[in-house]
């Protein structure tokens, strides 16, 4: 599967380069190359994940290597949805480099022999829990990106000095709407993800809650996005304040995803989820 993943990385890198070129030059032909390259990468990536699943005999979302690869895949899927719904081409220039990096790191990690979580995959709930959470994080990444785009543009509009990047970003209300919708989707997925995690834990250990750092961070993340959505929907908070919440929320997501690993606790099975 490594060679296939290498092909995936090549496609993503090619897409990232073309997205950035298209972002700078506003060339539609270049944008198309990037989109096709992304599509090819995504198909190969799906193949690689399915291959892993068949060969290793467990859902390909457990070790760090698998998680990064799966996260990259989920981000591409979410990006495709965003592109389809909002035609926000600039998103590609921002997300594809990150997706390439995630794929690259996952390639660097050699699969350890300890990846035999037979007891985890015994229950169907565990892969559902992890998948939901990963997609929630991918959605929160979109919120983060849209929020950054919002803040960049708002700053330039307020200062009345428009840089080259300004003309290439989607309009304010578009990124605002994108952030709101992505936050709603992300929060729904995270809610379901936490719920399935709890049930799985109940099933296995007879406890819903373990008080470990990852759980606490996840709960905080959930709260931040909940507040964000409530405020957006009641329309008291629009624009920059909501955008800052989107940025803070994503910092918490990163803490949940990576930080908890270094704080120890129940969720550390030598892996990050």
């Amino acid at each position, binding site marked *: 599967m490594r060679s296939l993943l290498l092909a995936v990385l090549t496609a993503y890198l090619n897409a990232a380069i073309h997205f950035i070129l298209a972002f700078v030059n*506003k060339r539609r032909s270049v944008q198309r190359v990037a989109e096709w390259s992304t599509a090819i990468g995504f198909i190969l990536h799906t193949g690689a994940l399915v291959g892993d699943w068949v060969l290793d005999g467990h859902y390909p979302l457990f070790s760090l290597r698998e998680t990064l690869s799966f996260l990259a895949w989920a981000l591409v899927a979410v990006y495709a949805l965003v592109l389809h719904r909002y035609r926000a081409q600039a998103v590609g220039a921002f997300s594809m480099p990150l997706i390439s990096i995630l794929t690259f790191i996952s390639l660097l990690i050699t699969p350890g022999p300890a990846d035999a979580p037979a007891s985890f995959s015994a229950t169907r709930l565990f892969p559902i829990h992890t998948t939901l959470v990963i997609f929630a994080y991918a959605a929160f990444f979109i919120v983060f990106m849209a929020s950054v785009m919002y803040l960049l*543009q708002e700053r330039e*509009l307020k200062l*009345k*000095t428009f840089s080259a990047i300004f003309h290439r970003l989607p309009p304010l*209300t578009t990124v605002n709407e994108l952030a709101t919708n992505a936050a709603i989707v992300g929060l729904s997925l995270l809610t379901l993800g936490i719920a399935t995690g709890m049930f799985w834990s109940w099933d296995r250990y007879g406890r819903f809650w373990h008080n470990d750092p990852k759980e606490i961070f996840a709960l905080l993340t959930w709260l931040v996005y909940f507040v964000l959505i409530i405020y957006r929907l009641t*329309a008291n908070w*629009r624009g*920059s*304040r909501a955008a800052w919440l989107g940025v803070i929320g994503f910092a918490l997501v990163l803490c949940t995803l990576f930080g908890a690993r270094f704080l120890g606790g129940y969720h550390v099975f030598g892996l990050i989820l």
Partner: protein
Amino acid sequence: MSIILVGVNHKTAPVEIRERLAFSDEACAEGLRRLVDGEVVREGLIVSTCNRVEILSATTTEQMESSAGRSAQFLDAAGQLPTGFLNKHLYSHTNEDAIRHLFRVASSLDSMVVGEPQVLGQVRHAYAIGVEAGTVGRTLNRLVHHTFRVAKRVRNETGIASNAVSISYMAVELGKKIFESLKGSTVLLVGGGEMAELAARHLVNAGAARTLIANRTEETARRLANEFGATTVAFDQLDQALSEADVVICSTGAPDYVLTESQARKGLERRRNRPTCFIDISVPRNIDPAVGKIPNVFLFDIDDLESVITSNIREREREAERAELIVQSEVMQFQQSLRLMDVGPTIGALREKMHEVARAEMARQRKRLGALTQEQETAIEALLTTTVNKISHPILNQMRRFYESNETDDLQQAKKNFDLEE
């Protein structure tokens, strides 16, 4: 065929001269019929806009000089000026330079405001008149179609037309930057004045659904309301209007602030914090600058607009440099296709001639062969055709190469060898 372009534009001739030369549509068609005689000038068309009058013509290489002279004289006569009067204002380009000039004009690189969209339509119009008058032949036809392609490419692949360069259009650009689209939006026009009205008109053209007019003079308010199909708003009801408006354009002669911070805040609260764009083009300013500090409100005064426009013009100039590269590569491409187009008839004539010889010989010898079956007939015909094709193939290729590398002497020699002088 050679291509010649003779003309004046805003850089070479003052308006007093350009206005004398300007052609109406009828004069243009009529003039073309006089100019194009099929001998000195084989094909022609006239591009006449307020910034330029140019005659584009095609003729044989030998007639190039006299054709250019004729075009110049034609312009003198059209302006009722003494012959040679225009010489110091005229530019005259041939072949590569003429093609490049036309590409640049249509791509709006030669315009007073680089990137303005009208000029392409004007070239299109000139072409239509030429076609109508019957003075556009194969060469110009190709050239003009290629020109349209180049202009489209420049527009799509560079940003020379993407950023607003006029105050009135800035309202639309800012609106589009804040709201995804202006469709269905509401515009509030406070006061009047030419620039503000023009800005409002641009917004309506971009899709704004409602226009509200607030004006102290009732008569002006009514006039504007009629013009825009707008609703008038009394000045003491501005607060209500503010809560509905997405874009507010303010331009009154008032000596102090017409819109205060607290008004804007209240309006924003009532529109549940949906962003508002305020554009203040009055001097002295009519909107309290503190309004710009409110979150979700974007305020631009006349200086802000000017400075954005300056940077937009710089951006357009940067993009124009990229456009020049596109034009250059397209000029090369067109010249190439022009050479091939020229060689086409020659090659066709030569091949035809060889086949003709073979057919004639066959006809002469046919009766000696006696009765033949259908199959034999076909075989003989195929034999002749393939023999001629195989012999002529390298010769034709050679001629094509001469053309592509522009070795006209060799080509003339080849034509002579086969007795193909036109």
